[in-house]
């Protein structure tokens, strides 16, 4: 998967906006949205929120986890634990990038938030590599990793699966009596 595809999936997540226009309920294939009344918060998918924001038709309200205190807690916990912390959103990376790029004026301390999220991401990726290495070293048969997000899996997934494929092939070399299909003359 491309990161852009993961982002596409992330854009289905809901976020709160405050519109400055009014509109009756709209009926889309994915479900109903609205009604929209000026000044009244309403939940919409991120793809619509970004679009409206770009057309200056709304103001975005950051999700409650997108706050310096909360993110610091998450980052510290991630650094402390060996396992992966459950993240406040399965698309935390994508949402951070989208909201901070298009609506940073609606988000207090945007730069700090960006840094905190990046730090947390780096810690998680390092943990993932450590975990992969010990998995390979001990030649385990299977592993279970909880609380990983799709973007993290997507970034390292291809490498890991290919490496394991190679390992598997080399391991089957160890089986005695491996087949060599030689022809009889």
């Amino acid at each position, binding site marked *: 998967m491309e990161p*852009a595809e993961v982002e596409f999936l992330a854009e289905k997540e809901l976020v709160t906006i405050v519109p400055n226009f009014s509109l009756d309920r709209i009926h889309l294939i994915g479900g109903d949205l609205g009604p929209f009344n000026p000044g009244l918060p309403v939940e919409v998918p991120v793809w619509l929120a970004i679009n409206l924001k770009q057309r200056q038709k709304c103001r975005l309200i950051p999700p409650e986890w997108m706050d310096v205190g909360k993110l610091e807690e998450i980052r510290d916990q991630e650094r402390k634990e060996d396992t992966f912390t459950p993240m406040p959103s399965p698309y935390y990376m994508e949402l951070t990038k989208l909201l901070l790029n298009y609506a940073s004026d609606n988000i207090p301390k945007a730069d700090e938030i960006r840094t905190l999220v990046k730090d947390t991401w780096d810690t998680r990726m390092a943990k993932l590599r450590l975990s992969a290495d010990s998995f*390979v*070293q*001990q030649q385990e048969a299977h592993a279970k990793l909880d609380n990983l997000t799709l973007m993290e899996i997507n970034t390292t997934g*291809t490498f890991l699966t290919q490496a394991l494929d*190679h390992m598997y*092939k080399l391991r089957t*070399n160890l089986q005695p009596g491996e087949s060599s299909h*030689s022809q009889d003359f």
Partner: protein
Amino acid sequence: SLLQGSKLEIPLWLAKGLHDSRRRIISVELPKIYKEAWRTVFSADANVVDLHKMGPYYYGFGSQLLNFDNPENPEIAQTILQATEGGPVLPASNSVCPPQTFIARFRRIMDSSQNAYNEDTSALVARLDELERALFQVGQKGLNDFQCWEKGQASQITASSLVQNYGKRKFTEVDG
């Protein structure tokens, strides 16, 4: 025509074709790097070895060699795969084998391919065999795609590198 007992070099595919454990037309001598002396080097520190220089298809070739019934085959197979540092020691052999090599070198390949600051990867890559290089590139691509996306370049339209190389006359030149 050939005399019995003469030694010569032939490509692997030919040797495979001629090999037949019953008729014993040929016997294969192991290349240096798969022999015991080198296997000990791998067991000491697999990361040190320049696999590209020693034979750029170390893993693939090594796996193919196992087709020829050689008494050292189990040890060779092991070395190619197994882990050295603190890895489980197999009872059958006390020498180390190619799977260990792969596993020992895996960590470095993974870390450097996912390294955002591409300091000295060229030195490392020069010493990888072809299989490891392909793996390294896959890791790099994963990282590069992510970084590209993060910067917002994923949604920018750029001219394809193929087109740029065509050397067509550009618009400004035509106007002259």
